[in-house]
């Protein structure tokens, strides 16, 4: 259990004792007995005709047969329902004015010590809106930054008293984008900063302890309140609340929590249903904004094209999300925080109840769940002796939208919302005026008639229109106004034999109205008596969505297990092994348990023990490998600093990228997903297998060695755009940045090693800090991390090999390396691989000498060469890219295929498992209907680890399934009647371009394709 600093102890005493009196003393009587009410003591438990005694802000007694204390004033609450006050899970403090201090963390996005409540100001109007839906306390959270600061649980009374402080520490994956020069400006960087800061917090805490104990042995550390707070939160197991905007953010949050042993909370996105299996493993507490998307505008077929299938489905699915999350065993709270119109809160509660969440659970989400999660389960959330007297009083079941919140109690003090008794006026009345009787009919305005829910609300709130009938004729009521128990309207026409406009004014008492009529000169009295009461019509109940979920959600997502036979035998095929066996015709190949078992002229297996594929006229190759990709990642470049070795592509893998699926359709099975080329030392790459339909982390090629991306030339010196003036701006500077980084890494390792060897120092002196950036760089020097370097010109290629040799390691690959052909002997001598484009040139000055013979010429000089894509489209036709090595320079087709199979495998040091069809390697293969490098051949099937991830037939089925689903969803949306007031849905059918990403930045990557 976490420890919260409680602030709530006999409020009355504290307030009475500390505050000076301004005028004369005020001492409200603070003992009340609420009697004859329906009291919902806690979810699932209620007492009819019960009494509740409130004393000094707390609940003293509750029950059926309670004697009203002598000093208590009795309030008869006949007909009322009383609930424990509701807790809003998220009240953001806007415009916080955190004062700058020299003690602040160096990165202004880290402000963990900031307490949001310090700047809490709520406009009266907003406060009233919260009160009117029964919110009595709110979780007050900060707005800005990555480590945003701390939250309080605050009672929304005049004093805004905190029941608990430091409830959570808030984290947001806040990316400001490329234009921001401040680090970090990408999701990659944000996650790295979070990880580094959490490490720093531990280190700082440990260091402070040592300094305190051994002041003589240590240099004092500067004060860092942010790190102190974080350490405090961590060691006390207080929750870290991550803001999430989509399900991947949830996964990332939970991964960080797991790594640093944090207690995770999430601000839900509403998309959790898409990756619930993974989320539930970590069982976070989730606060859900109670808001659902508006109907997508699909009325125009061409605007409909702008909506992706997963968006259309999300409209249908969003209100089911909470139910699904709850069923997965996750507890949650709710917030009205994102709603502009707070009245939608109750409407949306109705929605989730319709979709299957019980009223008890909903009540719990407003009371006991958040109270428990915040460690306030003995203070808030229930109506029990000793609990704080926060109450919601309604005139009916709160979860019936027709009932009204009439008052709330905040720490024992009542706040009026609306009158307790309200007559539903709709219906027919007989009006008696001077012995004439007319019929008055009050109805819900016709504009609400279509929407039954809206209709009910109008009915309950007396939002009406009406008419008076005289015989067969009728006169419409004008300016009908109903306030509390008063009614006013005007009638123009002949009534009372006067042809004039008459103003009616009356007072309502149950089924009677008594009042006066004024015609400008005279008053008349009138009486009205109800004759017909309008029956409440049944509401349209929403149903749970019947849509099937896919993984990943959206077009081509999987809806069933992939084909994974124990064994696969391809019979009588032409096999391009890319291994020592070369090309063999009319051979067999057997795959067992995800591995290649045998490649031989004739393999026989017992009947039924293997899936047998007739390979006649078919070709089999290893799965293709792309040594330079930017697909399947949500963020590519952290460009705010010249050295960002700490950022990792693995943190931002994006398994929903449809390019994974498309590339499988081109026979690609493995990709090296690289950081961009914005800086000399970029981030850590991730080698993945294209396991479509898996969780992001399961994309990782587990055995692949770790790596990192460096970059040289125009991009890193910001030559082709208005850069931020960052060092370096020349190739000379680039070289120095890299040397400097490696020297720093050496110093860093030395520092750690010295400390680790000195047991005496370990006891008394501050340990060296773990630095994720230098750690990664040191790993390069130790040969544990492969270096892949974006490069174009021969000088820079030469230069980097020399640096590597000076520091005693080897460059794994030069990427692009378009002038590699000029220094092939250097590449060969150094032993670096070259991963190049087939025939790209011309786009920038440093590629002026690019030639399509580059690959061939390097290969002929014994350089290990691969062709890469750097482009989502090229990546699905790597085979025809390879053919360009035949066209330009005359390599054999067999050798050319190596450029996209075994050679990149060797470059990535994964050739032990993939890259060729040899016994013992992974069952990653492609079946083609023709010669593998021919543009006229097509992929029939693509397999990874013995699982079939793509096939022509399946592809057709998925296409048809998605087309049908899309039509059904659009039909459902078109036929859906109720008006919605949620968040407008922004169409996003366009897929990101991933087009020569090295040259692009994060913003462009996330943006839409150019739809000019």
């Amino acid at each position, binding site marked *: 259990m976490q420890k919260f600093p409680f602030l709530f102890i006999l409020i009355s005493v504290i307030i009475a004792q500390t505050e000076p009196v301004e005028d004369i003393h005020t001492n409200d009587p603070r003992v009340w007995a609420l009697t004859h009410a329906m009291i919902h003591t806690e979810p699932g438990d209620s007492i009819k005709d019960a009494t509740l005694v409130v004393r000094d802000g707390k609940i003293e007694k509750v029950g059926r047969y309670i004697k009203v204390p002598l000093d208590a004033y009795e309030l008869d609450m006949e007909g009322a329902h009383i609930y424990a006050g509701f807790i809003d899970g998220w009240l953001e403090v806007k415009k916080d004015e955190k004062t700058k201090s020299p003690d602040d963390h160096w990165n202004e996005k880290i402000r963990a010590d900031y307490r949001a409540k310090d700047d809490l100001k709520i406009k009266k109007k907003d406060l009233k809106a919260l009160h009117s839906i029964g919110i009595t306390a709110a979780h007050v959270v900060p707005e800005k930054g990555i480590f945003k600061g701390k939250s309080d649980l605050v009672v929304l009374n005049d004093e805004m008293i905190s029941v608990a402080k430091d409830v959570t520490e808030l984290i947001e994956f806040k990316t400001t984008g490329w234009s921001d020069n401040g680090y970090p400006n990408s999701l990659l960087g944000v996650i790295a900063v979070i990880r580094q800061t959490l490490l720093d917090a531990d280190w700082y805490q440990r260091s402070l302890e040592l300094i305190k104990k051994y002041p003589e042995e240590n240099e004092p550390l500067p004060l860092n309140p942010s790190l102190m707070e974080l350490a405090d939160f961590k060691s006390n197991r207080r929750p870290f609340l991550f803001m999430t905007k989509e399900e991947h953010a949830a996964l990332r949050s939970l991964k960080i929590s797991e790594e640093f042993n944090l207690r995770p909370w999430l601000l839900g996105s509403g998309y959790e249903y898409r990756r619930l299996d993974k989320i539930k493993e970590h069982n976070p507490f989730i606060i859900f904004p109670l808001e659902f998307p508006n109907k997508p*505008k699909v009325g125009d077929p*061409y605007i409909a*094209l*702008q909506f*992706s*299938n997963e968006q259309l489905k999300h409209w249908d699915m969003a209100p089911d999300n909470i139910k699904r999350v709850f069923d997965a065993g996750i507890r949650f709270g709710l917030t009205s925080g994102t709603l502009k119109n707070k009245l939608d809160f109750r409407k949306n509660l109705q929605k989730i109840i319709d979709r299957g969440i019980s009223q008890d659970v909903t009540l719990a989400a407003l009371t006991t769940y958040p109270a428990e999660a915040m460690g306030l389960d003995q203070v808030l959330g229930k109506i029990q002796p000793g609990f704080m007297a926060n109450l919601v009083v309604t005139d009916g079941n709160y979860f019936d939208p027709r009932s009204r919140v009439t008052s709330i109690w905040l720490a024992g003090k009542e706040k009026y919302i609306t009158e307790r008794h309200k007559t539903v006026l709709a219906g027919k009345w007989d009006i008696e005026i001077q012995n004439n009787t007319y019929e008055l009919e009050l109805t819900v305005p016709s504009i609400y008639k279509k929407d039954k829910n809206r209709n009910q609300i109008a009915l309950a709130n007396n939002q009406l229109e009406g008419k008076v009938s005289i015989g067969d004729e009728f006169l419409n009521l004008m300016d009908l106004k109903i306030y509390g128990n008063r009614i006013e309207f005007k009638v123009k026409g002949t009534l009372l034999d006067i042809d004039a406009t008459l103003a009616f004014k009356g007072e309502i008492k149950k089924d009677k109205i008594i009042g006066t009529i004024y015609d400008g000169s005279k008053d008349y009295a009138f009486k009205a008596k109800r004759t017909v009461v309008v029956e409440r019509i049944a509401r349209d109940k929403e149903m749970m969505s019947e849509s099937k979920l896919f993984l990943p959600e*959206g*077009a*081509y997502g999987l809806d069933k297990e992939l084909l994974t036979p124990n064994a696969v035998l391809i019979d009588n095929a032409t096999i391009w092994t890319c291994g020592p066996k070369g090309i063999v015709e009319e051979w067999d190949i057997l795959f067992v348990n995800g591995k290649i078992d045998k490649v031989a002229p004739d393999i026989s297996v017992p009947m039924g023990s293997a899936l047998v594929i007739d390979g006649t006229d078919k070709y089999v190759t290893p799965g293709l490998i792309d040594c330079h990709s930017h697909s399947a990642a949500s963020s590519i470049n952290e460009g705010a600093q010249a050295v960002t070795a700490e950022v990792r592509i693995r943190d931002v893998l994006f398994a929903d990228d*449809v390019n994974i*699926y*498309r590339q499988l*359709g081109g026979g690609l099975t493995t990709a090296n997903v690289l950081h961009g080329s914005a800086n000399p030392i970029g981030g850590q790459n991730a080698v993945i297998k294209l396991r479509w339909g898996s969780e992001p982390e399961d994309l990782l090629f587990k055995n692949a060695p770790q790596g990192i991306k460096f970059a040289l030339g*125009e991009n890193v010196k910001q030559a*082709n755009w208005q850069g931020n003036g960052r060092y370096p701006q020349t190739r000379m500077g680039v070289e120095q940045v890299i040397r400097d980084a490696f020297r720093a890494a050496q110093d860093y390792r030395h520092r750690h090693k010295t400390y680790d060897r000195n047991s005496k120092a370990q006891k008394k002196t501050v340990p060296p800090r773990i630095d994720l950036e230098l750690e990664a760089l040191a790993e390069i020097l130790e040969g544990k991390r492969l270096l892949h370097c974006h490069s174009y010109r021969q000088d820079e290629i030469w230069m980097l090999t020399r640096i590597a040799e000076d520091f005693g390691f080897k460059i794994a690959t030069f990427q692009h390396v378009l002038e590699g052909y*000029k220094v*092939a*002997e250097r590449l060969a001598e150094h032993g670096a691989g070259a991963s190049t484009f087939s*025939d*790209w*040139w*011309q*786009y*920038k*000055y440093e590629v*002026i000498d*690019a*030639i*399509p*013979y580059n690959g061939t*010429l390097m290969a*002929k*000089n014994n350089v290990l060469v691969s062709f890469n894509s750097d482009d989502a*489209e090229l990546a699905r*036709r790597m085979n*025809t890219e390879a053919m*360009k090595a*035949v*066209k330009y*320079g005359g390599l054999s087709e067999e050798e050319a295929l190596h450029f996209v199979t075994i050679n990149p495998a060797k470059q990535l040091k994964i050739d032990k498992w993939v890259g060729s069809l040899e016994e013992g390697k992974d069952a990653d293969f492609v079946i083609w209907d023709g010669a593998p*490098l*021919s*543009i*006229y*051949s*097509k992929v029939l099937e693509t397999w990874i680890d013995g699982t079939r991830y793509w096939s022509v037939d399946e592809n057709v089925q998925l296409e048809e399934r998605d087309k049908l689903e*899309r039509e059904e969803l659009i039909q459902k949306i078109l036929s859906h009647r109720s008006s919605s007031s949620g968040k*407008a849905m*922004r*169409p996003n*059918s*366009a*897929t990101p*371009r*991933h087009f*020569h990403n090295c040259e692009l930045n994060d913003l462009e990557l996330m*943006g*839409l394709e150019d*739809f*000019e």
Partner: protein
Amino acid sequence: MRYIPLLLFTSILFPNDQIPGTEQKRPILLRGGTLHTVSGDVLEEYDLLFAEGRIITIDEQIQPSPETDIYEIYGKHVVPGFVAGYTRIGLTEISAVKQTNDHSEIGDINPNVRANVAYNPDSDLIPVTRSNGVLVVNSAPSSGRVPGQSSVMKLDGWTWEDATLKHPAALNINWPYMYIDYEKNRKKNDKAQRDEYDHQVREIDQLVRNVRAYHHRKSAKERKAEHKQETDLRLESMIPFVIYKDPIHVKANDIRQIEAAVKWADEQDLNIVIVGGRDSWINPKILVENNVPVILLGVQVTPRRRFEPIHIPYKLPALLHEAGVHFCISLDPGYPMDGHVRTLPDEAMRAVSWGLSKDHALRSITLSAAEILGVDDKIGSLEPGKDATFFIAESEPLTQTTNPIKAFIQGRELDLSDRQKDLWEKYKEKYRRLGRLNE
């Protein structure tokens, strides 16, 4: 008669900058080649005689006159020069270097600017492009609402005037953006975005009306001296397109843009060609019914929307062909594609792989392109009377490894070397000297 030995075919004439071809002085007979006429059948072991830059005769056996040079090309293929329908060749050297770019004039309305006057005949892109058989390109200006006039250029010549095959090829218009964009224009609601679009179209309409009025006033017979219409280069430059209905190339990829442009042309009674056309598979009928051709920009591209069939761009040419749309295939210029025009045959081959016949694919980068650009009287097929603009290759034209071994533009033999081959040779020499290479 002079028999030219085949040996000369592969030799590189000049080791440095490529020198334009010399005017054809003697008739040349290509004997026994496989002729891909495009307009007709593939003729095997046929002779082709050309003189003074034109194809004279195609026949099974041609008796040459004594002054004829004869190339025996049995087993080799003669193919009309590929035609790229929409490029920036000559207008850019290095896309990222502003100083080398001449395709985007400032301002929105530039109907008067002419591509060919800025065409740099010494651009390194030219020899590289023609090395793959692309011998004619349409060079087009690109930015703003009315970027200017494009020109059909022969990839050979000392000056831009030499190189111009047709000018103007077309007036270019970039159709206004119709995507309701909730990201970039988040502050504008749907209606504001549509209003903005309507406003942009109204501006185009007004421009057209002003051209009509300008022309009307200029050509009115009786007028006083003081009533003389003073010059407006913009309006004047549009007269051929608005009054005489020369083709207007409208860049439009989104289906809404395509439909809107077609309807606009119909209402305004103008001749348009859709450039881009990536959504044209959604409603090809409108193109057929209105007789609007399409210059497709790119076959080997990713689908525009996640839920589209993943190979839809590959199948697009076949779909258009089946629907009866007149189209040609080109590439989408712009960073980093400006120098990629040489991959034009790859785009056509990909279309074959996904349903288009080889004949139609070849046509889509030769005769169809020539027709759409209005130069089919001169190029695009092997027919007597047309320019001798073709290349000779060892293998079929739509083969991935095909490299032209000889090429002619209007009978002038081209130097098929280029900067890239030169560098290749240079560095092969380096490795020979280092003893690392012996070829």
